[in-house]
């Protein structure tokens, strides 16, 4: 998945720490006031503006929806698989989905299917793999 042009400045994507068995967990935040969860280390709760505490989410989650991008995006040769993943008891995150190199055609991850968060790609993208039901 290499070749993403990396502009200067801090990476805005969620930060992922190593988890058990080679998985990854998102270093996010949970709101003290409204219990909203966020994948980001932002200074306040995006829902209510309340104070937030560090919280980890993942590695397992469920695919809310998924697609395959088949058009060129600068630095990203198509096709590539994207999914919105609802991490268990955690936030919805946008992740790339591991591609089976032996597949004839790249298809979207199954909606409603289970996935596991992995360490980020070398380029810093969130990455999940489809796990058996």
């Amino acid at each position, binding site marked *: 998945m290499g070749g993403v042009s990396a502009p200067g400045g801090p990476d805005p994507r969620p930060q992922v720490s190593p988890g058990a068995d080679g998985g990854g967990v998102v270093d996010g935040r949970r709101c003290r006031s409204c219990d909203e969860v966020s994948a980001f280390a932002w200074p306040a709760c995006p829902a209510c503006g309340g104070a937030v505490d560090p919280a980890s989410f993942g590695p397992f989650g469920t695919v809310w*929806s998924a697609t395959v991008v088949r*058009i060129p995006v600068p630095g990203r040769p198509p096709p590539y698989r994207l999914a919105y993943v609802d991490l268990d008891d955690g936030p*919805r995150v946008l992740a790339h989905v591991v591609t089976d190199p032996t597949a004839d055609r790249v298809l979207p991850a199954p909606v*409603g299917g289970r996935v596991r968060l992995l360490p980020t790609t070398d380029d810093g993208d969130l990455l999940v793999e489809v796990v058996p039901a």
Partner: protein
Amino acid sequence: MSTVSVHGVGTSHFGRQPERDLVALAWDAVREAFADADVTGVDAVWVGTVFGPPGVAQRVLRAMGVTGIPVITVENACASGTTAFLEAHEAVRTGRYGRVLALGIEQMSTAFAGAITPEPTDPEGRSGLALPALYAMAAARYLYDGAVTPAQLAAVSVKNHAHALHNPRAQYAGHHTVEEVLGSRMIADPLTLLQCCPTSDGAAAAVLAPASGGSREVGVRAVALRSGAPWNHRSPHVWGHDVVRDTAAEAFAAAGLDAVSDLDVAEVHDAFTIGEIVTTEALGLVAPGEGGKAAESGVTALGGTRPVNPSGGLLSRGHPLGATGLAQLAEIVWQLRGEAGRRQVDGARLGLVETMGGGVSVLDGNACVVAVLEAP
């Protein structure tokens, strides 16, 4: 406080026009709007643009002699033009200025080879979430939930391309079949090329002033704007639904609308086929889960009971981002005056404009604008 009317509208042609600059495109729109309103100047200008360079508003306006007055540039993604309209309306309503120009301008063809480059300072943009992929995931979820079929998605494209056959300003038009739409190149599963708006250049403008009872004045019953709240695992709907619903509720209440069914014609944000389906449901023009069926059965076609996007919409008229909202407004003004030619909705008295802008991750849309307009 004044009741506000649209006194004149104008637009450029819409399409890939890399050989023309924004001065030329804006001149087409402003010249027509001024002539339509029978004025030669205004007291202030709000300009909507997304990718226009710094100073672009003053640069295009000075070329047509609009100088020495307040010029304010606004950016709200695809809703930038309608945001300019909202602010112009408020300025006239409160008496801050007497006559105001709202102008939307955008040149996409010289900026992007294909889809808009995802914004690298946004988390999801940095992750490669091109806008077609965002809408594609709404469509994929609708398919998973059984709320739409592939043929119903395609029906929106078929309908709007057919509407545009009667719009000489449209970028594209044609008699397509569902099979052709579904068979066109896949962009982001399940959305094919003919389900995605094109890369467009264009400008559109409106002159607003207090209502004076003129026979060609289109009244602004209400206009509302909201930016999205967080969209996440708790959201009951796909991206963009709830902010459209909530903005519409605010606009409908302010307009004193008895029922959504009182609306005779609507221009809504169909940047992608699924967008029109979700939006017609969120607006209440059709029941939840009925948006796809409404497109397929002709309910939302010209001649149907709820005509949507008679101009061809963003899918066919084109989508020059900052200009789009005012292009939608111009269409509704022509419809309510009975000047829409072969795409006229007979006897249209109440019209709706809805524009949706996106591109900030976590939020249910950067901004949504909904306006209700009334025939002279």
